[in-house]
């Protein structure tokens, strides 16, 4: 990468760390450190919520998915706006008004200690491991692109994040998220501008080509439980997923607990309700644009440069042969694409389209052979969708803009990791250390423990990320296990709003809910994970209500302030 690009990345990292540490003023109490003394404006919280959700995988993986699969992924978010509106009148007033530091703390007030501790433990288990994967995904890509050891790229992302999160607490995290979100949007818009300016055909012709290959197919109205990306999966399953994520996951709940008032907390979530789908569509359209651009500029046969190097060294002759065929097929497809763009009358346009699709199939067949060869030679999966956009950025974007985009990828990773580290530390200290180990201590003591917890979780995440390849199957198991209880935890919070529900019923419901989702996962593995959230929440609510008379529990007031038993 050009030194100017590196300078932009380094300048960004320094700015985030220094400014984050400066934001540590007023964090000498646990209220300041964990929830910013409920002092943040709605737009700061709203951008922090969006930045937390938008990880580096969105920047490199989702854009890549747009290039290979088109816009249909956006259907996953169709339930988000409705979920945000529901949360605005249910859980947000309850949690914000009750003066808690964590969502799970509220469950003890409503039910009992065992329900609180189990949900908090499940959060620590799933988020602790996912934090490692959030660093690992961009770490692996940056390591391959720049030819640096994985440990370096993990350190490049992880160390600055741990530093400002540990020292500055939630204020540093929120204000860094604001900067990071703006940087991400600017980086995406910069690519759009470059694509429009450098595209060899007009925007209308580019859309014709994208449409011909099915990449502008957003909506799929089939009702298929096995497919994640359909309208109904998105609207129904997506609503439950987003209710779980934004309503019960401490990494998001803690964002809106920092808002100045309940109304500002609601407004912060509504920012996502308004902007998430357009933003996600923009991310995917960037990928679609890159796909069209590569119809006229020959892309690499393999996008992962590290794998390409190994293949060249160990199966050079076979790979050279594939590259020759690839160049010839590309030339034919380019001609066909230009004919599609030029054709206007219907019969000619249809014939041009058919020729183009046949040439495109040839290209995909050769790519398939190359990927199979890479898998055979390296012994590793060769799916290279995450490398498409970074390779495009580094080879096609002007100097400076490439650095801006790489900084944007790192920013996206940091904004998600910082919120997770912050929430992991909060849950560890509030739901376990203060609850079970040291209930009576000074703020100074809890602050010291909180900073230590942030550093420990950060180190753990970096170690998991560094050994992501060897820990691959373990991470997969934990992620899979995580999907068992996401919807079930939502079910517990839904029960918390129902006067009939009591503690033991909620606790047993949670266990039965997780068991049901596990049974569905293993019994009918083809059912999309989006439906697991619906099943988990439904079973917990059903069991909790059936066992309604068991255990203790106080009915919450509408604003969560005083239980009215």
């Amino acid at each position: 990468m050009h030194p100017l690009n590196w300078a932009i990345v380094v300048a960004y990292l320094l700015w985030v760390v220094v400014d984050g540490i400066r934001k540590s003023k007023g964090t000498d109490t646990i209220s300041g450190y964990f929830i910013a003394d409920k002092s943040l404006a709605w737009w700061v919280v709203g951008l922090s919520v969006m930045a937390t959700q938008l990880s580096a995988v969105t920047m490199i993986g989702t854009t890549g998915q747009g290039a290979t699969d088109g816009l249909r992924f956006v259907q996953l978010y169709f339930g988000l706006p409705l979920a945000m509106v529901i949360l605005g009148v249910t859980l947000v007033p309850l949690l914000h008004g009750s003066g808690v530091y964590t969502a799970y703390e509220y469950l003890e007030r409503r039910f009992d200690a065992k329900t609180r501790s189990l949900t908090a433990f499940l959060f620590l288990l799933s988020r602790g491991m996912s934090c490692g994967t959030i660093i690992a995904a961009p770490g692996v890509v940056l390591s391959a692109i720049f030819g640096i050891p994985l440990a370096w790229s993990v350190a490049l992302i992880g160390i600055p994040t741990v530093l400002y999160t540990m020292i500055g607490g939630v204020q540093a995290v929120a204000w860094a998220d604001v900067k990071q979100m703006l940087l991400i949007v600017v980086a995406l818009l910069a690519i759009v501008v470059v694509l429009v300016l450098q595209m060899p055909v007009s925007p209308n012709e580019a859309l014709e080509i994208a449409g011909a290959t099915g990449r502008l197919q957003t909506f799929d109205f089939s009702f298929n439980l096995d497919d994640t990306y359909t309208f109904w999966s998105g609207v129904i399953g997506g609503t439950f997923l987003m209710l779980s994520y934004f309503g019960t996951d401490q990494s998001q709940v803690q964002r809106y607990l920092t808002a100045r008032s309940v109304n500002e907390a609601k407004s912060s979530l509504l920012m996502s309700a308004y902007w998430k789908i357009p933003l996600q569509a923009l991310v995917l359209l960037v990928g679609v644009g890159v796909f069209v651009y590569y119809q006229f500029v020959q892309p690499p046969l393999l996008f992962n440069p590290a794998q390409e190097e190994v293949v060249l060294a160990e199966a050079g002759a076979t790979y050279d042969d594939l590259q020759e065929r690839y160049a010839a097929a590309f030339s034919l497809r380019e001609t066909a694409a230009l004919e599609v763009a030029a054709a206007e009358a219907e019969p000619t346009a249809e014939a041009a389209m058919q020729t183009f699709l046949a040439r495109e199939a040839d290209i995909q067949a050769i790519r398939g052979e190359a990927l199979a060869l890479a898998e055979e030679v390296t012994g590793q999966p060769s799916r290279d969708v995450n490398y498409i956009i970074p390779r495009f950025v580094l080879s096609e974007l002007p100097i400076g803009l490439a650095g801006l985009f790489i900084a944007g990828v790192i920013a996206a990773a940091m904004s998600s990791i910082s919120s997770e580290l912050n929430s992991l530390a909060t849950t560890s200290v509030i739901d376990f250390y203060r609850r079970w180990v040291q209930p009576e201590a000074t703020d100074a003591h809890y602050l010291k423990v909180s900073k230590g917890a942030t550093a420990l979780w950060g180190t753990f995440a970096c170690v998991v990320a560094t050994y992501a390849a060897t820990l691959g199957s373990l991470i997969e198991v934990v992620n899979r296990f995580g999907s068992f209880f996401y919807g079930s935890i939502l079910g517990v919070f839904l029960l918390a709003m129902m006067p009939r529900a009591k503690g033991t019923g909620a606790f047993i419901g949670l266990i039965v809910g997780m068991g049901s989702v596990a049974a569905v996962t293993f019994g009918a593995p083809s059912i999309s994970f989006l439906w697991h959230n619906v099943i988990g929440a439904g079973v917990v609510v059903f069991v909790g209500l059936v066992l309604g008379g068991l255990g203790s529990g106080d009915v919450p007031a509408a604003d969560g302030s005083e239980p009215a038993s």
Partner: protein
Amino acid sequence: MTEPPVHESPRAVFRRTLVRVLVVQVVSLTLLGLLQIVYG
């Protein structure tokens, strides 16, 4: 004279917010739908 503040019920707030959010989503989804219909 200033009007006294009118307090809306949670149900009314929910309905009003939902309508606004839905209007924005309908516009976004219509644009995506048009892309699919015109070019797809």
